[in-house]
């Protein structure tokens, strides 16, 4: 047996490895980098949207003035809105004003954008929050509580939820409207009160749209919850928690659910995105003065100031949401924190 060289076994002098200094400054740098990234994202969103929205000046003129508009009127319109300038100039002009808090007027020139968009944003946010507040807990609670695959309750729920998910919003919306507003008269048919009514009327007005939206949200969140919880219910640590005699709800909520919550966070984020920008059908059916309708009309009309204001707002919400989701995910999965990949 030959022995290879004995390598130094000398004791190191001190605990002095060459290592990076990380501190408050580093964290501040990381934060500002994220912030810059977010701003850049929003800038890009506005840039892309602006060009995607691009219509010819004549078309915009006709959209606003009606199809009878004459050549002279169209030219005057284009000139008064600055539509005769190169696109990039128009964009930079918009941006320059926007960042200074001047959101401009709508394409028709009849409304300043800010008072148009902000209330709609508020209504939509309210509707979204109200919907999330009841539907997500229900979906999660049901998903977690009966996450035992193959039981009769699970099977029944599975079918019900899948059918609910497959029903388009207009079917659900009209059904709840006819049942709860026309027949039972519990709630108003139209939810205009969200924008126009007294506080009591407003509360009532939120019920039906929120119910309709929730019927779409619940099955989705429920499915993701169920799938993830089932997955982590079979993990050894859940088994160990059971064996420690912990109560069922503690095992499920503290041990299984926390690890299962990671995909859920993103599912909720996606639903928020949908609730903030994509509930046009529900807004139409229930006459909710919300962002979706406003955005749709703005896009249809080529009203770039209004559309961009909305898109930038939504963009800001989503970017924040995205960052937040990442933070929550890291919180829920401690292994992601500063570890090597």
């Amino acid at each position, binding site marked *: 047996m030959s022995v290879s060289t004995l390598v130094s076994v000398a004791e190191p002098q001190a605990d002095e490895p060459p290592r990076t200094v990380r501190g408050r400054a580093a964290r501040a740098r990381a934060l500002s980098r994220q912030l810059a*990234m*977010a701003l*850049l*994202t929003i800038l890009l*969103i506005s840039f892309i*949207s602006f060009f*995607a*929205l691009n219509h010819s000046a004549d078309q915009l003129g006709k959209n606003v003035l009606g199809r009878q508009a004459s050549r002279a009127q169209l030219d005057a319109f284009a000139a008064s809105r600055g539509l005769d300038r190169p696109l990039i100039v128009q964009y930079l002009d918009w941006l320059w004003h926007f960042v200074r808090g001047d959101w401009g007027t709508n394409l028709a020139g009849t409304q300043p954008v800010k008072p148009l968009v902000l209330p709609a944003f508020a209504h939509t946010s309210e509707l979204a929050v109200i919907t999330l507040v009841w539907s997500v807990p229900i979906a999660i609670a049901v998903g977690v509580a009966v996450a*035992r*695959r*193959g039981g009769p309750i699970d099977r029944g729920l*599975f*079918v019900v939820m*899948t*059918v609910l*998910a*497959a*029903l*388009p919003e*207009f*079917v659900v919306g*009209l059904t709840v409207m006819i049942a709860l507003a026309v027949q039972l008269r519990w709630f108003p048919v139209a939810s205009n009160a969200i924008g126009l009514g007294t506080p009591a009327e407003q509360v009532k007005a939120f019920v039906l749209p929120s119910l309709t939206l929730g019927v779409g949200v619940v099955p989705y969140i429920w*499915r*993701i919850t*169920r*799938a*993830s919880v*089932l997955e982590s*219910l*079979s993990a050894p640590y859940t*088994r160990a928690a*059971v064996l420690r005699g912990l109560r069922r709800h503690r*095992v499920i909520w503290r041990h*299984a659910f926390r690890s299962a919550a*990671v*995909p859920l*966070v*993103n*599912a909720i*984020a*996606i639903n928020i*995105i949908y609730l903030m*920008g*994509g509930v046009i*059908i529900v807004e139409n059916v229930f006459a909710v003065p919300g962002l979706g309708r406003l955005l*749709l009309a703005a*896009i249809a009309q080529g009203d770039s100031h209004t559309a961009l204001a909305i*898109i930038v707002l*939504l*963009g800001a919400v*989503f*970017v924040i949401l*995205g960052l937040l*989701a*990442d933070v929550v*995910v890291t919180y829920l*999965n401690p*292994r*992601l924190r500063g570890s090597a*990949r």
Partner: protein
Amino acid sequence: MSVDGMMQAGDARSRVVRGLAFLRPVTHTWMGRIGLFLVTLMLVVIVFGPALAPHPPNQLNVGLPLTRPGNGLVLGTDNLGRDVLSRLLTGGRMVLLVPIAAVTLATLTGGLVGMVAAYVGGLFDAIVARVFDILLTLPPLLIALAVIAGFGSSVLVLLLTVAVVFAPQIGRVTRGATAAVVTADYVQAARARGERRITIAVREIAPNIMAPVVSDLALRVTYGVIFVASLNFLGLGAQPPSSDWGLSIANSLGYVQVQPFASLAPVVGVAALSVGLNLIADSMMRYLSNDSVKDSML
């Protein structure tokens, strides 16, 4: 008989079972069987429907416009007096084709990118997350308009539009699910072994994030159909007088209170297809994850 011999015999049998029963992942639960039945039924409708339709789908005034079922018209007529049943039987093709194809495409792209991003981490991940944010923020309608403006309108464009809208959503779910498993040692093991990133994503990570991703997927086909229907309003995809389900839903929506069957018939068709797909997906998930083995007795 030696113990080993016994084992080998059992092994051989189970291999035969494995070879034959390619449908077993679906049919091993009764929910899966119902799903298979629904999807098969819808496939039959889609393939043989045109032959079974009692009237040409575009024939006007088969009955008075907007008559409810009766007088030999099983589902009544639509606003142009066309037979709703015949239109139901002939209009399912695109519904099967486009959303399923688009969702598949979106999963392959968005899902993969999300997965790889979460796995690779760092700058790439940050960029992908922001790109997803951008795509999620851009209103689907705007994307659709931009795509039509750029590429005109065809089935392929429709498919791409749906895929572009869905990809970031799927990507986000996938990215999240991946983040939960990237830290596992088997991923490290694969890295040490020198697997390519894509292989790690597909072989090591993908099977372990199936649960949320497949759940998301099966529902998304449903949303896809509805989305396709709304894109028809923009002149993207099916054009009137096509009896396409999505188009029919969109067009008959206006008078759903007068003749509900004209819009509800395709809705039920879509729902049946989607419920079927969901049941199949769940049954397969259950088979693949084999979790009765790991059940924690809760």
